[in-house]
């Protein structure tokens, strides 16, 4: 199976690996897993006072496609509003990395991870406002 150059690049040089303090108010954390393949993915966003995502980090234990998908998403969300980041679709990720059909579920995991991170950030912001 031939993997695309973009996929291999993200796998070999993953961007934004690491963690933020998940209890921080400006951090949203998404933790998702695909039990069928045993993958687990953590994706975090740090939102600035202007409402833009100023930084993002990820940690993924899974196959190369799962690592590349999460690495790509952390790059894409930087500088976006959370509403914009929420519109990222797994099909965009799969197309950009030219994921083979058997690896499409890795892009689903990355979409679910960013959505979960945004939901976590919003829940924190709501609690703070109350």
């Amino acid at each position, binding site marked *: 199976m031939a993997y695309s150059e973009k996929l291999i690049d993200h796998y070999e040089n993953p961007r934004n690996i690491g963690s933020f303090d998940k209890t921080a108010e400006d951090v949203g954390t998404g*933790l*998702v*897993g*695909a*039990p069928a*393949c*045993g993958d*687990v993915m953590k994706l975090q966003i740090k939102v600035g006072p202007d409402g833009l995502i100023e930084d993002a980090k990820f*940690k993924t*234990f899974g196959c190369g496609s799962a690592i590349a998908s999460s690495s790509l998403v952390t790059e894409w969300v930087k500088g976006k509003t959370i509403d914009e980041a929420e519109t990222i679709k797994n099909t965009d990720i799969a197309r950009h990395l030219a994921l083979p059909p058997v690896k499409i579920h890795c892009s689903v995991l990355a979409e679910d991870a960013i959505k979960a991170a945004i939901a976590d950030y919003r829940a924190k912001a709501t609690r703070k406002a109350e």
Partner: protein
Amino acid sequence: MDHFARLGLPAALDLDAAALDRVYFALQRQWHPDRFVSRPPDERARASAEAASLNEAYRTLKDPLSRAFYMAGMAGVDLPGDGKTIDDPDLLMEAMEAREALHDADTLDAVDKLAAEARQDVQKALAELASLFLANDRGAIRKALLRLRYLDKFAEEARARRMNIDRSNA
């Protein structure tokens, strides 16, 4: 006919491995194609179908984890298939921390220690699962099986990590 009934065994997670071997090998002899070479075609076909079903039943029930997933299917437990994601924070946090610890383990001893702990977790989870099946608690069965799947994946990754360390020491 379900796999347990085919082998004449009670449908329980806590299966006697020696009894499973015994009935399987006895039935396998009974339906062996060699014994049907001079029989009419319909009997030969039946024997070959029986032998194939027996092998399938044995393969499924021999391994405790595979047996547990099969029993979950029988009990109508809904498990996420390929491409389905979960967001159970306790389970995923445990899986993430275990994989991080494995990633940081850089000696064979350290990897073996983590693998031994994971094996104990599997044994404990299987023992608990046996009573969950008896109580037919589908939600708890689902949760326990998802955890077991991650523990199984951990064991696989620990073997891979061990080989990597072994190779770089050589």
